[in-house]
């Protein structure tokens, strides 16, 4: 990499970090400002057309996230999420193992369909947290369980934004990630929950929680046909998502935004009465920072392309010896997540993916997203633990400390998968 290119990269990186950390600007605005600074420094003036074109890079993903968040808010307001959680406790409460597995997946669910850990923490996390504490888990452990499941939910399929960002940067479609992402997220999430919570659950309190859930379900306004009807939006969304993949010859693909919109409309007709407009506004308000980051990332990638830095990064990355490359991925990628996981995926994930072009890219991108997501625990931002701590009224650092061991294990797992990407790809038939 030539000296001017290196200087431009350092300037862009420094500008972004300074705006986020020192000026406390949102990540989206910092990315947009860093893009403008890069263009100005490279002598391209203010390339408005290119900047606007960059904003379109992740428009489809943004629409998916926006509509998914509206759907989440609707099924939260109509009582489906509460009903689902109580049913699982009543059904699986006899087995600690099955219950913890089910609750982990329930916490992950909003993150899986929106690609946002905030949706998990504030959606199902808020419902499951009191249940976990009633089972005897201390507040910090409860926070750690919710944080870790939310982080894994963020990168679980069908929507993994970091993979989409890196894929957009290397012109790779978001296709074929379902199986490997499921394995890389659901299994570690369950193991982390078991490691954190297994010993701390009080069996007597668990029995009490199960009895209370059964009593709540018996006294619930939803019984018989109404209860089945309550699950209709969720069932419709699953059918509309799975149908086109299972029967592509005759099942039309409505795509995810329309799928979630249909689910949201069904949600207003089943369960408790929902004010669709206020639910939609609440969802958009919550997810707007994430959508803004996607717009900012698109602008930055466009500017990197315009100034020729993207090509320079590729050439420079290919020249790094593989030992240093894996070490730097394992250390730098999670550390950058301390500022923004999505920002890290854009700024570092793209060059790292390009440097590993000889390996199966589906596996590489999945592993990079796993490693990068662990940056959610890293201060100064430590986004997921901070949101969880706010929810529980607890300090965030003890939650971070509880999550640190499993996070390091996940980074090691991700690095091993990167090293053996091609054999892993053969194993999964990717």
């Amino acid at each position, binding site marked *: 990499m030539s000296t001017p290119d290196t200087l431009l990269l350092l300037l862009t990186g420094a500008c972004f970090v300074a705006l986020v950390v020192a000026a406390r600007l949102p990540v989206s605005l910092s990315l947009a400002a860093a893009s403008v600074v890069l263009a100005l420094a490279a002598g391209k003036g203010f390339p408005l057309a290119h900047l*606007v074109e960059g*904003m379109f890079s992740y*428009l489809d993903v943004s*629409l998916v996230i926006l509509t998914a968040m509206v759907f989440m808010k609707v099924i939260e307001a109509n009582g489906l999420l509460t009903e689902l959680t109580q049913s699982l406790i009543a059904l699986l409460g006899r087995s600690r193992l099955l219950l913890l597995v089910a609750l982990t997946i329930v916490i992950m669910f909003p993150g899986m369909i929106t690609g946002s850990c905030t949706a998990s923490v504030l959606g199902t996390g808020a419902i499951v947290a009191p249940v976990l504490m009633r089972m005897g888990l201390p507040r910090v452990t409860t926070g750690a369980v919710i944080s870790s499941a939310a982080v894994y939910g963020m990168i679980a399929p069908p929507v993994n934004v970091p993979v989409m960002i890196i894929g957009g940067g290397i012109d790779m479609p978001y296709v074929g990630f379902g199986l490997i992402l499921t394995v890389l997220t659901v299994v570690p999430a369950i193991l982390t929950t078991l490691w954190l919570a297994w010993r701390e659950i009080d069996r007597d309190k668990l029995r009490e929680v199960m009895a209370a859930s059964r009593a709540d379900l018996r006294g619930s306004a939803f019984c018989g046909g109404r209860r089945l009807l309550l699950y209709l939006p969720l069932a419709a969304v699953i059918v509309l998502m799975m149908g086109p993949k299972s029967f592509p010859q005759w099942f039309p693909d409505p795509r995810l935004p*329309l799928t979630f919109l249909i689910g949201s409309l069904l949600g207003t007709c089943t369960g408790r009465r929902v004010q669709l407009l206020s639910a939609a506004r609440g969802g*958009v308000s919550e997810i707007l*920072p994430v959508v803004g980051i996607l717009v900012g990332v698109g602008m930055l990638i466009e500017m990197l392309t315009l100034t020729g830095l993207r090509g320079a990064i590729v050439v420079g990355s290919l020249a790094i010896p593989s030992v240093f490359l894996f070490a730097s991925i394992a250390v730098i990628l999670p550390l950058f997540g301390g500022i923004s996981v999505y920002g890290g995926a854009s700024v570092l994930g793209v060059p790292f993916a390009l440097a590993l072009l000889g390996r199966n890219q589906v596996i590489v991108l999945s592993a990079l997203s796993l490693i990068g997501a662990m940056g959610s625990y890293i201060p100064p931002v430590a986004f997921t633990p901070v949101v969880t701590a706010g929810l529980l009224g607890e300090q965030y650092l003890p939650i971070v400390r509880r999550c640190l061991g499993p996070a390091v294990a996940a980074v090691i797992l991700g690095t091993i998968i990167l090293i053996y990407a091609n054999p892993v790809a053969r194993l999964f038939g990717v």
Partner: protein
Amino acid sequence: MITVVYRGIVAVAVILVVAELFSQRSLKVKINAGLVLIPLILRALMVA
């Protein structure tokens, strides 16, 4: 047909983001909403 539905979804998103833009007090959030609005409006109008 699907194009009309798609534009309708984008238009709904525009309305919701505009509502957010005017209901928020924080200038940073307003600018963020404005940033998000640009591609949404252009796509709803099929300009780009």
